[in-house]
C-alpha cells in the first residue's frame, strides 16, 4: 500500500543528490536498488497521509536539510560513566580516531561500506530485508531511502553474551549536515547485546536500525535524544524476534524541532518478548512523534509499549501505536499505554492507539490519557517544605518512572534519570 503519490518531481528531487557508496557487492547493490524502487513507488508522505496526520513531514521531504545551530554542550555526555565500546560518528561519518578499537569478544563489528562490499551471509538476510518487511501494511519511505543511500553505519553480529554495551555516539559540527546512517545487527542464538545511542547527529538525521534476534537471543537498546534543539530526525527501528528472544528498547527524547521515531517489531518465534518505552520532555516549539507497530505472529509472545510525555509551552507530542495480532498468534499478551502530562494549556498530546486482533485467545489492553499536574499532590509536597519547582520535578519524574523502569540496567537507568533531572532543572520557571 503506497502513500498517495506526491508530485513525482519532489520524490525524485529528494534523492537527486544522494549517491550509493561505491564498490558494493552484488547482493548489497540489489538490496539498495530494490530500496530505491520501494521508495519511488511509495513516494513521500504528504499532510493528508493518515500515518502522518500528527506530524508535518515537510522538513524531512525537503531536498536539503534545514540548517541547525551547532551547540557547544557544557555537561558531560550521557553514559559517560559506563564501561562501553564507543563508536563515534561526526555529522554522519564514522570517526575511527575518536572511536574505540572495534574488536570485542563475542562481537563482530564492521563498518557498513566494507561489510556490504563482500559477502557476509547473515547481513544478506538483514540489510534492507527487515526494513522491507516493515513496509507492509504501512509505507515508511524514509526507511527505504535510508537503505538505498546510507553511506555509513555499522554492522554488528553478537555471538555471545556481551556485558559491555556498544555506544553509538553522534557528534554534530556542521550546521548543514544531512546524515543517513544504517545499522544492521544480528543477535545470534543465546547471545545478548546492549546498544546505547546518544548525541546530536546532524542538522537532519535519518537513521535506520535493523535488528534480527535469533532464538533465545536478547537485545537491549537505550537511546538519549536531546540537547540539539534544532534537529530534525526521522529514525526507524526494525526488529524480527525469534523464539524465546527478547527485545527491549527505551528512548529519552528532549525537545527537538522534529523527531519522528518509528519502530516496527515482528514477533515471529513463540514466547518472544518485546518491550518498547519512551520518555519525552518538551518545553517550547518542539514536536515528538513515536510511531510503533508491533506484529504478533507466533504463540505466547508478550509485548509492552510504555510511552510518557511531559509537554509545555507549545510542545506537541504524538503517539501512534498499533498492536496487530495475526491469526494463530494465541496466548498473546499485549499491553500498551501512552500518557501525557501537560504542564500548561499551550501543550498538546495527540494519540492514536490501535488494536487489530485475529486470534481468539489473547489478552490485549491499551490506554491513552492526558492530564495536568496533580495540584493536591503538589500542595502536599509543598506543605512538607519542597519548593514548588522541586515538587513539580518530583511529580514529573514520578510520571515518567513507569517508562524509565523499562530499562533493565540500573546504572543506565540512573544515567537517564540524571539526564532528566538536569533537563528539568534547566527548564524550571
Amino acid at each position, binding site marked *: 500500500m503506497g502513500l498517495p503519490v506526491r508530485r513525482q518531481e519532489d520524490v525524485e528531487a529528494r534523492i537527486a543528490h544522494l549517491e550509493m557508496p561505491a564498490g558494493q557487492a552484488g547482493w548489497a547493490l540489489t538490496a539498495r536498488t530494490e530500496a530505491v524502487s520501494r521508495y519511488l513507488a511509495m513516494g513521500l508522505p504528504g499532510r493528508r497521509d493518515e500515518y502522518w496526520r500528527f506530524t508535518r513531514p515537510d522538513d524531512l521531504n525537503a531536498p536539503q536539510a534545514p540548517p541547525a545551530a551547532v551547540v557547544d554542550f557544557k555537561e558531560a555526555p550521557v553514559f559517560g560513566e559506563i564501561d562501553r565500546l564507543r563508536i563515534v560518528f561526526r555529522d554522519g561519518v564514522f570517526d575511527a580516531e575518536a572511536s574505540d578499537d572495534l574488536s570485542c569478544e563475542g562481537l563482530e563489528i564492521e563498518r557498513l561500506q566494507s561489510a556490504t562490499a563482500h559477502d557476509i551471509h547473515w547481513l544478506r538476510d538483514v540489510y534492507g530485508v527487515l526494513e522491507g518487511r516493515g513496509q507492509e501494511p504501512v509505507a515508511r519511505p524514509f526507511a527505504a531511502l535510508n537503505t538505498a543511500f546510507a553511506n555509513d553505519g555499522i554492522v554488528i553480529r553478537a555471538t555471545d553474551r556481551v556485558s559491555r554495551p556498544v555506544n553509538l555516539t553522534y557528534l554534530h559540527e556542521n550546521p548543514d549536515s544531512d546524515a543517513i546512517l544504517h545499522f544492521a545487527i544480528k543477535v545470534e542464538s543465546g547471545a545478548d547485546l546492549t546498544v546505547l545511542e546518544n548525541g546530536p547527529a546532524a542538522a537532519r538525521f535519518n537513521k535506520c536500525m535493523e535488528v534480527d534476534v535469533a532464538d533465545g537471543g536478547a537485545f537491549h537498546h537505550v537511546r538519549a535524544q536531546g540537547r540539539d534543539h534544532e534537529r530534525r530526525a526521522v529514525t526507524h527501528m526494525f526488529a524480527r524476534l525469534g523464539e524465546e528472544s527478547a527485545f527491549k528498547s527505551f528512548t529519552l527524547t528532549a525537545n527537538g524541532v522534529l523527531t519522528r521515531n518509528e519502530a516496527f517489531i515482528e514477533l515471529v518465534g513463540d514466547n518472544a518478548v518485546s518491550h518498547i518505552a519512551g520518555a519525552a520532555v518538551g518545553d517550547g516549539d518542539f514536536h515528538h512523534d513515536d510511531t510503533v507497530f508491533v506484529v504478533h505472529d507466533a504463540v505466547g509472545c508478550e509485548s509492552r509499549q510504555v510511552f510518557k510525555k511531559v509537554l509545555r509551552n507549545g510542545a506537541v507530542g504524538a503517539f501512534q501505536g498499533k498492536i496487530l495480532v495475526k491469526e494463530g498468534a494465541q496466548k498473546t499478551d499485549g499491553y500498551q499505554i501512552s500518557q501525557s502530562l501537560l504542564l500548561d494549556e499551550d501543550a498538546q498530546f495527540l494519540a492514536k492507539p490501535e488494536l487489530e486482533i485475529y486470534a481468539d485467545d489473547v489478552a490485549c489492553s491499551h490506554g491513552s490519557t492526558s492530564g495536568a499536574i*496533580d*495540584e*493536591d*499532590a503538589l*500542595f*502536599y*509536597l*509543598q*506543605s*512538607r*517544605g*519542597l*519548593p*514548588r519547582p*522541586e*515538587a513539580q520535578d*518530583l*511529580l514529573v*519524574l*514520578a*510520571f515518567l*518512572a*513507569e517508562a524509565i523502569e523499562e530499562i533493565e540496567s540500573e546504572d543506565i537507568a540512573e544515567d537517564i534519570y540524571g539526564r532528566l533531572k538536569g533537563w528539568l532543572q534547566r527548564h524550571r520557571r
Partner: protein
Amino acid sequence: MLKIDNLHVRLEEEEKAILRGVDLYVPAGSVHAIMGPNGSGKSTLAYVLSGRDGYEVTHGGVALEGQDLLELEPEERAAAGLFLAFQYPVEIPGVGNMTFLRTALNAQRKACGGEEVSAADFLKLIRDRAKSLQIDPEMLKRPVNVGFSGGEKKRNEILQMAVLEPKMCVLDETDSGLDVDAMRLVADGVNALRDEGRAFLVITHYQRLLNHIEPDVVHIMADGRIVKTGGPDLALEVETNGYADILQEVA
C-alpha cells in the same frame, strides 16, 4: 507561637464565606484542641494556615512566632516550622516515601541555611522514628500513601512530623480511622514531641484522643467561628451531650 486574628476566609471559586472571624492564640509549649460539628470550618482553617490555594482571606491575619504567615508560600511556612497532618493524606504514585521524606527534610534544612542530612544519618533517623510508631520499614519503600490503609496513612503523617520536627503542629482528625492501639501509638508519638518550644493544634471529633494527648485548652468551632473555649472538661461535655447545648447557649 500561633496567633490568629479575626480571620475571615471565603472560597475563591464561589461567593461562600467559611471562616467568619476566627480568633485563636496557641502559646509555645501548649496543646490546644478544636472540636466542632461537620462542616464548621476546621479543615478550612488548617488549610488556610498551611497555604493551600483556593481560599481568599478577606480579613484578619495569622502570625507564627510574630511572622506573617499569610504572605508565605506553603513551603516557606513549612520551613518556618508549620506542619499540617492532613485529614486526607494525598497519595503520590511514583514518589517513594523515603525519597519524599529525605527531599522534604533537606529542603527545609536548606531553607534554614543548614546542611543536608547524610544518607546514613537519614536512614538512622527514619528507622528510629518508624520503629517507635511501629511502621513496617517495607512501607517506607512504597510510594507515598499509595495503597496504605486509612490508619497507615495517618501514622505516616505522624512519622513525617516526627522526622521534620516542626514547631507548630496542626493535626486534622489524625485519630479518625485509627484502631485503639494505633491511636495510642500516634498519641505517644505526639507526646514524645511535646516540649516548651513546640505547640499543637489538635482537631478532633472525639474525646478519646484527648485522653491520650491531654489538651491545655479546648475550643469549639461552629459556623466558621470559635464559639466557646474552655479546659479539657469541655471535650467531655461534648462527648456526653453533643453540640446542641453549647450551640444553643452561644446563639
